[in-house]
């Protein structure tokens, strides 16, 4: 009888794990925060395509588990994907076709950009890279907001 109880419990555990909701990171990089606030302490760094387990939802924020870290990530940094329809188009209610879903993450990608660059060496991609590298740290943004009497998001 004990064996039945153990097997059932294991089965229940596995079933729960399989049914757990996961979301995928869609930004190049992002952070899991201690609280559901943009500038709360960072618990973990995540990158594009990382899978996060959703524990609960607090407004625009998901409480997620990533490895040993538990914290919050904003809903616009992730999306729910399914095996059959990866990418943006698996979003519930988006009503896109299967062929559109197949495009997600594929059409215009680094491979296409590389070919485009070699075809157009005059294009100043290095300046675009410089623009993207110009990062204003979170701490400067929070000080800027506070000093200007603005609203902390």
């Amino acid at each position, binding site marked *: *009888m004990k064996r*039945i*109880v153990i097997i*059932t*419990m294991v*089965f*229940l555990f596995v*079933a729960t794990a399989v*049914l757990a*909701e996961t*979301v995928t990171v*869609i*930004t*190049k990089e*992002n952070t899991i925060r201690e609280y559901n606030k*943009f500038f709360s302490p960072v618990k973990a760094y995540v990158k*594009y395509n990382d899978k996060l387990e959703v*524990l*609960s*939802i607090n407004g*625009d924020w*998901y409480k997620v588990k990533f490895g040993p870290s538990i914290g919050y990530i*904003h*809903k*616009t940094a992730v999306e*729910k994907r399914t095996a059959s329809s990866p990418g*943006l188009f698996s*979003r*519930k*209610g*988006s009503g*896109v076709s299967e*062929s*559109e879903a*197949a*495009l*997600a993450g*594929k*059409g*215009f*990608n680094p491979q*296409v*950009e590389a*070919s*485009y660059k070699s*075809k157009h060496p005059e*294009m*100043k*991609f290095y300046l*675009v890279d410089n*623009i*993207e590298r*110009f990062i*204003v740290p979170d701490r*400067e*943004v929070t000080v800027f907001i506070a000093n200007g*009497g*603005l*609203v902390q*998001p």
Partner: protein
Amino acid sequence: MMKRSVAFLFALLLLCSLSGCETMGLGNISQHIGTAMTVVDATSKASRPISDEEEYYVGRAVAAKILGSYQLSNDRELTRYVNLIGRTVALHSDKPFTHGGYHFAVLETNEINAFACPGGTIFITRGMIRTTSNEDELAAVLAHEVVHINKRDGVAAIKSARWTQALTVIGTTAAKNYSPAEVGQLVSLFEGSIDDIFKTLVVNGYSRSQEYAADEGALQLLAKSGYNPGALDSFLKRLAQQGKASGGGILKTHPGTSDRIENISGKAPSGKTSTKAIEARTARFVSIVH
């Protein structure tokens, strides 16, 4: 007792499988994730078959093309200031995160203009910055551009025929690496898409309804961020005066300024801004911009 426990466990398991784990609260999470995503879809009205990642690559190429026509500013202090304002506003928007993030850059030209490249890179010209009289007005210009990105207006400029061709090339295969011939076709489509967006941003402009929506969205963003929503109105009125002399630029690609002023009339949310805060913002604006 043991039999009762086993029966309870089986009942729990059955309930779980039948209800999609509602007993664990996961069903609700699933429903909410769906709702949240639908909201995002609604804000990104362009139902074009393009992911955030693809939008980012298109936007990078559009930015590179714009930098072929305009000179990028090396003024780090001004660039930092514009980024601080822009990031503050973007964090209050419907889409605070994009694939590559928001980046704000200054173009060294007297032309009065600003461009929102798909994916999150926003250009503002030195001429446009000079036209603003305080930080709140500068924030109004950047908020308008952030709304264009939120609504994916740039991507919507791509001709629909290109998507049909892209779907034909890509098909429904799972492979991510293409043959040289397929890459050639995709690069051609990529090139065409960039031209479509560039023409819209720099030559023809967005539709009147897109510009009105961007103005209305900017009012909301300003209020949420703690800026004075009335700054958009005061900026547009100054633009109407200064723009007459300069011509071109934003006046060429946007609806009539008087029409824009009329459109936002009475739509600004009421906001309270302390005199001390306005003074602090004015002081830093003057020290950096003038």
